[in-house]
């Protein structure tokens, strides 16, 4: 598996669309990987790789004939874990209102200073005015240079945390929560007949020869939490994760094409709706996931070298 990230400061690099929204910016990606890159698979998250949202809405239980109450309970437990992780370790409280598409998006406002002893809880980012809102005097003007710098620090720290714990998210949780996570995940796997494990087979196969990119409609911070908690941290490097909440999938795809170029063949994998339309707009082939069997077929197609 190719490592696409390194923890040393990369804030000088191209993904700084706070100035120029990625469109005109020439992407820089390590040349060694890109020369051989033939395919990039653009994955949707919910109901494609992981089963989460449909646990809560009841649609999974209904579609696959599972006990609604059990399923809902699993969903709720997972949801609690996700948001607790997001709030406690991933600055979700601070960042919820100033969501980004990609973790590098505010890097250009960073000054690269050492953050090892930096105190995020008392730097005045989120004062009484609330994330530097209009009425706040303690935090300064939202969008002001100092505030943007503090924002950039958070995303940098976010990135570092992701990289450090992507193989071991349990270390971020209390022992009790760790146990809970293991149990809930096992139960979800059971009730979904191994959905996630099936998806991971394809993800790993792809990782070995080309590249996986995640494009989700979840906000970036909770998306990172989901990825970590569902054990997908080593399949998706943090720089391969995009949140389409603000700009939509079609624009996200456009950004990704700008980044990796048109010589690559893109394949979109999702459960329909937005990603299917976005794929069509970009003339990208679309692989639909409606049931676990579609993930099995996908894996087969990959193994047989059809994709």
């Amino acid at each position, binding site marked *: 598996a190719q490592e696409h990230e390194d923890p040393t400061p990369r804030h000088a690099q191209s993904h700084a669309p706070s100035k120029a929204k990625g469109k005109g910016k020439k992407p820089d990606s390590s040349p060694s990987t890109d020369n051989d890159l*033939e*395919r990039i698979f653009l994955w949707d998250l919910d109901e494609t790789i992981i089963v989460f949202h449909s646990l809560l809405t009841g649609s999974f239980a209904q579609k696959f004939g599972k006990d609604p109450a059990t399923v809902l309970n699993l969903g709720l437990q997972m949801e609690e874990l996700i948001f607790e992780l997001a709030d406690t370790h991933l600055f979700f409280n601070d960042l919820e209102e100033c969501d980004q598409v990609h973790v590098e998006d505010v890097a250009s406002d960073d000054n690269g200073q050492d953050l090892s002893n930096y105190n995020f809880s008392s730097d005045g980012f989120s004062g009484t005015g609330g994330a530097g809102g209009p009425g706040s005097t303690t935090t300064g003007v939202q969008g002001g240079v100092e505030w943007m710098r503090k924002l950039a620090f958070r995303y940098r720290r976010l990135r570092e945390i992701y990289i450090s714990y992507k193989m071991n998210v349990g270390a971020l949780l209390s022992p009790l929560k760790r146990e809970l996570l293991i149990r809930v995940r096992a139960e979800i796997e059971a009730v979904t007949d191994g959905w996630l494990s099936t998806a991971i087979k394809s993800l790993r196969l792809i990782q070995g020869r080309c590249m996986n990119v995640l494009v989700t409609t979840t906000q970036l911070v909770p998306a990172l939490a989901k990825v970590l908690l569902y054990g997908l941290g080593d399949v998706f490097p943090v720089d391969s994760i995009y949140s389409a909440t603000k700009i939509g999938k079609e624009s996200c795809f456009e950004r990704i094409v700008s980044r990796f170029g048109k010589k690559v*063949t893109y*394949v979109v994998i999702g459960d329909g709706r937005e990603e299917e339309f976005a794929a069509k707009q970009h003339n990208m*082939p*679309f*692989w*639909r996931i409606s049931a676990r069997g*579609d993930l*099995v*077929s996908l894996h*087969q*197609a990959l193994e047989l*070298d*059809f*994709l």
Partner: protein
Amino acid sequence: MSIMPSFGFTQEQVACVCEVLQQGGNLERLGRFLWSLPACDHLHKNESVLKAKAVVAFHRGNFRELYKILESHQFSPHNHPKLQQLWLKAHYIEAEKLRGRPLGAVGKYRVRRKFPLPRTIWDGEETSYCFKEKSRSVLRDWYTHNPYPSPREKRELAEATGLTTTQVSNWFKNRRQRDRAAEAKERENGENNNGVGNKHNQLSPLDGGKSLVSSSEDEVSPSQSPDHCSMMLFQGNVNLSGAAAYPLPGLGAQQSVHSMQGHPHQLQDSILGPLTSSLVDLGS
């Protein structure tokens, strides 16, 4: 969407594979994939599959097969460009083989004439170098009222004609330029003719045109109100002055007709001069 028991892929998935391998240029793999497909009619009539077969046939130089595929199935418009390219390239290659040397533009033209695109991959639209007549008449009409549409008016025109605002802007710009050039040329002719004293020169090649306006000649006099002038000027749906920013053509005509001095004959000729040259121009 049929699922073959032994063959694990749905039609949609098969189509997806075809697209991926085509886009990736992996035609060998695509060929192998197609060969492995079960002999299910449904599958083999799928457009993505047919397109893939066509591409593979071309790649292998199997042109008979290619033509057969292209001719025997109706393809949707968005695939037409690619398939037309295949058809043409294959025919060019075959012609070149016969000829023994590469084809030039004329050679290719002859090939296209000899092997016209089948309607399965072509909607019959000839390559047109002009805007549709309907659009052109809308623009022309507008031009006579105002040769300088505002940005908003351009947008409205674009909508009305089915063109882009850029195309509309360019049309007006070119039209004004050509009118200015035509008018300058007329001025030149007018001056030359006046100098010689022969006022009929410019009318003689245009007898038809002359008779068209001759009936109203009597009405043309300096004492005439501008309205009559404008009526006469508009008979042939002709407009005079590219330089005029004023909607009233009567005034405009007077502007462009610089030699007018109130003398009836002069007025006649001056007005008729540009008019007749514009009459010739009616095809614009």
